[in-house]
């Protein structure tokens, strides 16, 4: 296998990359003048752990058949993934300079036909777990052992298709399929539990035949260890759901306390303050 990093990386590096994901997100959204800051901030440690440590990938060969896959049901957090893929060498970092401009490959949602390293396009909430289940099925048919990580939002749990996929994956014993629920508690119209409650979430996934692991989604060492253990476990026919308890807007104080930041824009002065705060929190 060819990866740009050693098998086990320094936790300090993962923390640093999580901060990098946040500051780059602030920079890119500055270009578009609107974006999902806080949806990225809740997921930054998960992106960092997956891409800088856990996943078996080769940025020089984005179509490597045996690579692990990553899909985003919450595709609106793609702005946080683009800098990671550039950083790893899938494309030059300058490719992001036209983010959201006319004809750009890089928009609010990821496009697999235009961006190397994107394993599946998304944007319509609720499809990704099915897409990932299809990949896991195909992987088994082909005798390949890659894992498929699908990040889903907690608001996404309200989509019926998620539960079709959950039922199907357990029935078909897709143990290479991993759902990662970014349980940040908020969606566009407010708190998930006020909009349409999804708890008891762990019980629901267990009842659908999945193994459930819960983790503090901002403890990057715990996230890394959890996801690595899931990836490397012995095949037993049971898909895994990792529920990552996260905080929407993590890293920027006024976003953590104001849930209305699901979609928004920081004026340049606020963006500067946010970046300072993120960098100040860097380990």
């Amino acid at each position, binding site marked *: 296998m060819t990866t740009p990093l050693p098998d086990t990386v320094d936790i300090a590096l993962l923390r640093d990359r999580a901060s990098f994901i946040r500051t780059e997100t602030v920079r890119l959204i500055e270009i578009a003048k609107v974006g999902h800051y806080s949806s990225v901030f809740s997921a930054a440690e998960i992106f960092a752990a997956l891409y800088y440590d856990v996943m078996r990938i080769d940025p020089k060969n984005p179509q490597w058949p045996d690579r692990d896959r990553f899909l985003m049901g919450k595709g609106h957090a793609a702005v946080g993934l683009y800098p990671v893929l550039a950083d790893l060498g899938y494309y030059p970092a300058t490719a992001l300079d036209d983010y959201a401009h006319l004809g750009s490959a890089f928009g609010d949602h990821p496009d697999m036909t235009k961006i190397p390293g994107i394993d599946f396009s998304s944007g319509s909430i609720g499809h990704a777990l099915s897409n990932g289940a299809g990949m896991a099925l195909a992987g088994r048919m082909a005798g390949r052992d890659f894992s498929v990580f699908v990040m889903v939002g907690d608001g996404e749990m309200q989509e019926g*298709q998620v539960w079709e996929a959950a039922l199907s994956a357990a*029935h078909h014993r897709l143990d290479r399929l991993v759902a990662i629920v970014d349980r940040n508690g908020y969606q566009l119209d407010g708190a998930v539990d006020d909009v349409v409650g999804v708890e008891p979430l762990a019980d629901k996934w267990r009842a659908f035949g999945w193994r459930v692991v819960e983790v503090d989604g901002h403890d990057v060492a715990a996230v890394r260890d959890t996801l690595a253990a899931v990836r490397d476990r012995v095949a037993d026919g049971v898909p895994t759901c990792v529920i990552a308890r996260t905080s929407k807007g993590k890293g920027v104080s006024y976003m953590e306390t104001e849930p209305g930041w699901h979609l928004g824009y920081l004026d340049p002065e606020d963006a500067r303050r946010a970046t300072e705060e993120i960098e100040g929190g860097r380990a």
Partner: protein
Amino acid sequence: MSMSTLQPGSWQYRALNALNPGLDALSLGLDDLVAAGEPVVAGTADLTYSNGLIEFQRRHPDRFVQFGISEQHMVSAAAGMATTGLTPFVATFASFLALLCCEQIRMDVAYTKQRVRLVGHHTGISLGFYGTSHHATEDISTMRAIAGLTVVSPADGAQLRAAIRASASWPEPIYFRISRGRDPQVYSDDVGFEFGRGIEHARGADVTIVACGTLVHPALEAAERLHAEGLSVGVVDMPTVKPLDEELIRSLAGRTGVIITAEEHNILGGLGSAVAEVLAESPGGARLVRHGIRDEFSLIAAPTRLYAHYRLDADGLVAVVREVLS
């Protein structure tokens, strides 16, 4: 066209001698692809008996996935499978596939340009008394509006099988619109298929019927009967509704009195609309009559009763042509 109707090798002869060719052809076409080394897999949503995929499942259990009554999941999963190099064929009733799963088809299959083959079966009003939930008279319209999605409506099982074989070299995702497998056979078993190409069975100076799917056979029969009355009625089978054979439509416009489109579908958005779009943008134009379901939810009855009621059988087409020419 020959007026002697029962020559071996004629479409009339095949129609009388075929039993239930339509849906067996789906599994047989998939067998052909397997034999050719194509990486095909098949899936369905609790309808293996209705679509005949039970036969494919028996022969190739390692290439078959049962998705249960989860049509949207099936389409999205098929797209995921296709990213690994497989070519999934997923089949369910057209009313569910093209309408319930429309957004999954748009986002996961067409937008991503995956080699997924969507097979909507029991199209139109062929599910008779099962009613509107099971009728599909909007599927051409919805599928045709999705960028990059090819729409094919074969006339019979032989053409379906040929189209499946030909699909091996077709890069775009495809929506196959097939009926319930009881369609009279129009083509011989060795017929070929070319995407985007209409088939002109007969030239007509007075009228040309441009039909797809289940309307091809009645159009041929109607043309024969009208020919006996001295009318010159042409028949074009237009199995690929998208991309449409625009050249053939423009060519017809210059050499036939009236074009009548015939389809087991709402006249809004289907083959008739596709032909109208070409004619409206062509110099000269032509008189066009769109025949099909006239923007209503169909009544229920046995299918043959419905075809008679909506004038989608040969008797009906004869009457439509006479009306148009009167």
